[in-house]
């Protein structure tokens, strides 16, 4: 296989993946730090490198409504947003999941106001976790490109038929240049079949989508089907990631990726760009003799509960890093983790560290320090005293 390495920001990696996936309609509404994704796509279209229509809309609500309409009529469609833009889209996020229309959207994760803030945290993305979308987080720009292409394949699989969103951290990935292998068009064509979706709007054959169901039980069954299809998507995710690995030499473990876990007793759990710092922290702690490993959750929805439990079972503790908080409770990743580990009888203490909110910088030294104290406390006292800790650095 021939590698074509380009130097791409995370946002440009998204744009290249959208181009390679032969997307036909893109809606664009500017919001920092997402803007350069749709700008780059617009350049591709203008220069004749990409055969697609770009629709400039008047709001993010319309941005997703436009993509939803285009996708309903039978083409691949894409948009991107961040923070307040995603908040403004929220109604359409639910609507497109309920309508079972495969769509891919990129979320460049950014703090939500007040006060105004453009730096990365995961509040915007994590606030979408009940909607019924597939939700994938990227660690680096190569994974951004690969995951966008994979997501088109997964969302359009007949076992799934749901929209999907991919998150990449503001600036840390979106505006940072990394070497990225950009696969051949023919390789992507062989990986992505032609568009599949559960129904298509055609002018000669009118159908209504979303009318009031005469029986609410039918409505409940539709919501159940969204949930079941997300759970069923786990198998599809594993297959797709394996196949991508065979084609490109790159796979990401499907739902979760483990780093130095095989003999670990303590596990760091996280998502997003700072997983890279967590790898450094693991190496540092390992060199000090701590038996620690890292579990990167690639998918937040479907939540990889059994996969996580299988790794953590038999360990001595786990520490979940959240870059957002469900205010008044705890970090959302932590809440999912403890609920499922508890129900699956994985009896280990689990601690939550809430850090990096509002773009506060968190280094591998910070992570190693928090993990070190956590391990020391369990080793000496056997319990976690402060199970939801806010770490300000």
């Amino acid at each position, binding site marked *: 296989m021939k590698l074509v390495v380009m130097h791409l920001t995370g946002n440009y990696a998204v744009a290249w993946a959208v181009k390679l996936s032969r997307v036909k309609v893109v809606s664009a509404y500017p919001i920092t730090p997402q803007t350069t994704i749709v700008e780059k796509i617009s350049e591709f279209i203008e220069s004749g490198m990409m055969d697609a229509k770009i629709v400039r809309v008047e709001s993010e609500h319309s941005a997703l409504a436009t993509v939803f309409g285009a996708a309903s009529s039978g083409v691949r469609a894409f948009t991107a947003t961040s923070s307040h833009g995603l908040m403004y889209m929220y109604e359409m996020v639910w609507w497109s999941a309920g309508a079972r229309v495969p769509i891919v959207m990129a979320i460049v994760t950014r703090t939500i106001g007040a006060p105004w803030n453009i730096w990365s945290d995961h509040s915007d993305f994590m606030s979408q976790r009940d909607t019924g979308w597939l939700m994938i987080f990227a660690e680096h720009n190569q994974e951004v490109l690969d995951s966008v292409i994979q997501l088109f394949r997964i969302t359009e699989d007949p*076992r799934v038929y749901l929209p999907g969103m991919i998150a990449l951290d503001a600036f840390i990935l979106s505006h940072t240049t990394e070497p990225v292998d950009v696969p051949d068009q023919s390789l992507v064509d062989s990986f992505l079949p032609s568009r599949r979706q559960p129904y298509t709007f055609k002018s000669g054959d009118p159908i*209504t989508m979303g009318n009031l169901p005469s029986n609410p039980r039918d409505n409940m069954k539709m919501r159940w089907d969204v949930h079941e299809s997300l759970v069923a998507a786990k198998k599809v995710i594993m297959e797709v990631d394996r196949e991508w690995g065979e084609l490109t030499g790159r796979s990401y473990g499907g739902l979760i990726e483990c780093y130095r876990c095989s003999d670990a007793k303590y596990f760091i759990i996280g998502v997003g760009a700072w997983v890279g710092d967590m790898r450094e922290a693991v190496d540092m702690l390992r060199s000090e003799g701590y038996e620690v490993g890292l579990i990167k959750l690639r998918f937040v929805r479907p939540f990889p509960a059994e996969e996580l439990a299988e790794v953590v079972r038999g360990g001595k503790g786990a520490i979940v890093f959240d870059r957002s908080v469900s205010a008044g409770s705890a970090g959302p990743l932590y809440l999912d983790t403890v609920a499922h580990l508890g129900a699956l009888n994985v009896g280990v203490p689990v601690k939550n560290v809430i850090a990096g909110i509002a773009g506060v910088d968190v280094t591998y030294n910070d992570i190693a320090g928090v993990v070190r104290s956590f391990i020391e406390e369990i080793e000496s006292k056997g319990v976690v005293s402060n199970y939801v800790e806010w770490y300000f650095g």
Partner: protein
Amino acid sequence: MSEISHILPLSKPKEGISKTGTWRLKKPVIDHSKCVKCLMCWLHCPESTIDVVESSEKFVEVNYEFCKGCGVCANVCPVKAISMVPEG
């Protein structure tokens, strides 16, 4: 293709049960001699109550059982062939 079939929120449109024509205060009346067959009324009617009939006397007609009398058709007609006449 897979055997999977999902539960989808789809329906086939059919004629409504409630006759919304009784809501009407003004009724659109088409002067067919002025009609230029542009289909603007057909396209704009929010209730799809304008049918294309293409007979020798008329090109389109209004289904008064469902027309609510909103007046959009009269408004968009480029040759002012539709007038809104008060009911009863």
